Structure formats: C-alpha cells, structure tokens
C-alpha cells in the first residue's frame, strides 16, 4: 500500500518503518534597496512500530505539508 519505507530501524523488541518526504519551497524578491529570500523545508512523515511477530503496535503520520502526486 505504502511501498518500501525511507528507513527501517531495528529496535530491541520492535521494528520501525519510517516514511519521509521532503519538500523545499524558495521565494524571493530583488528590489535593489531591499531584497529578500525565503527557503522553507517541509516534511511529511509516517511511522509504524511492529512487534516481533510483525503485528502493528503504534503508528502516526504528520498532517500533510508537502503535496505529492500519486501515480
């Protein structure tokens, strides 16, 4: 359903599937007297904890920040 995780972490009694999506937004203006540039890095995360038997214990996901397209 979600595909392979970005990171798989082996804990003592659990396995963690960690999904991460990064999006960077750059904005700026050059007005000679005053110039500005803003860079914002946003993350979408989902995390799943499985026990030794592969049964889901806990999970959480961030409120979507980075938009993405699903094929």
């Amino acid at each position: 359903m979600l595909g392979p995780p970005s990171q798989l972490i082996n804990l003592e009694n659990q396995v963690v599937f960690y999904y991460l999506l990064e999006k960077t937004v750059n904005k700026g203006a050059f007005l000679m007297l005053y110039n500005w540039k803003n860079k914002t890095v946003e993350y979408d995360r989902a995390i799943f904890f499985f026990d030794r038997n592969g049964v889901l214990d806990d999970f959480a996901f961030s409120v979507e920040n980075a938009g993405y397209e699903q094929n």
Partner: protein
Amino acid sequence: MQDMSRIDYAFKTKLFLFLLVLAATGCTTIHTEIDEPIKNDGGAFREGETSIGDVLGEIGPPGKIGSLGSSGVVFLYEYVSVTEYQIGASPPGDLLRWFKISVAKAKNVRQVLLLTFDEEGFLSSREYHESDENLGSGVGLNFLYNIVSLVDYSQLESQPEILDWGYGLLKPLPEALNTMNSFDNGEGGVEQKGTPSKIGQRTLEMREGK
C-alpha cells in the same frame, strides 16, 4: 535668521547624505526555516506513564528516531529558523558599480524536544530547549543583482541522510566502517543539526570540515 539658514543647511546636508547612502546601499534578508515550530513542549507527558503511542497521537512522528539498544528508544523533534541580515554598498567606478560589498550577520532560533522511552515503551525522560544562537558574520564582494548567503550555516541545512538513497553506498571508507555507530541509520542514537563531526561517535568517520 542666519541661524535658521544654518539649521536648514545642516538638515539638507544630512538628508542628502541619507538619500545618497540609501541609493548606494541595499539590504538583504535571507530566511531559512526547517521543519515546523514545536507547539507542544511535552510538559504534560509523565515519566513512566506516557507511552510511545500517547506521544505519537499527541505530537506526531519525530524528526529523528534512534535506538538506545536494550535501554529503549529516543525521539528527537527539532525546528531551525535561520535569519541572515545583510547590508551592502556598491563601490564607485565603471566596473565596480556592478558589484556590491556586503556585511552579513546571521542568527538561529532553535527548538528541540528530546524524549527517551524505556524498553517497555514508556517515557523515561523529557527535555525541551529553545535557544537563540549567533551564527557569526561575514563580508563579501558579489554581483549586484544576486542574493548570496555570506555566513556559512550549511551544517544546519543538511538533508536527512535517509534521503540519500544509493549515494550512501559511495561513502568514504571510514564512514562506511562506522555505519553501526552512525546517527544516520537510527540504530546509534540521534544528534541535533549542526553538531560538529569531530566529537563523539562521528570522530571515527574522519570527516573533513566541520
């Protein structure tokens, strides 16, 4: 009457100089924001009572997660907001007027929430820290129509290494040999952004620079 004209003259001179400085200089602000501000400092969490599930339900997935071996697991939530201020002026001259000399200063607002859980998955410690950091200053000569950072804070902007994908296989040998002690794979603990690589577990990686 003579006094009035003298005041007038002084005011006009100052106004002229002010406009001249304004015309010759330019201010630049560069702002970098990484992740979202931490809205919940975890003050309501109780050690020995709050579980991993409670924390995940309350504040969502952590920015970094690391194993503490048989002692449990650690969550790190981190927010970084860097602002760099620059003021610059164009030197006189036909060629030099296309360039500007700028002076820059940068600061960082950092929020960190660190939570550790025991082997049963219950909170064993909590630490929240918010700080204003001075990142230093810089001077540079660059093209007039360009916005370039003059203070090096690249260590705070590094991308999570888990997004490096196959590039991780091309690491220098000392880094590859230290994989099991690295903070990057989640099995050797966690570290804050910008931590120097010349201390702790990264020492053996013999990284160049900071």
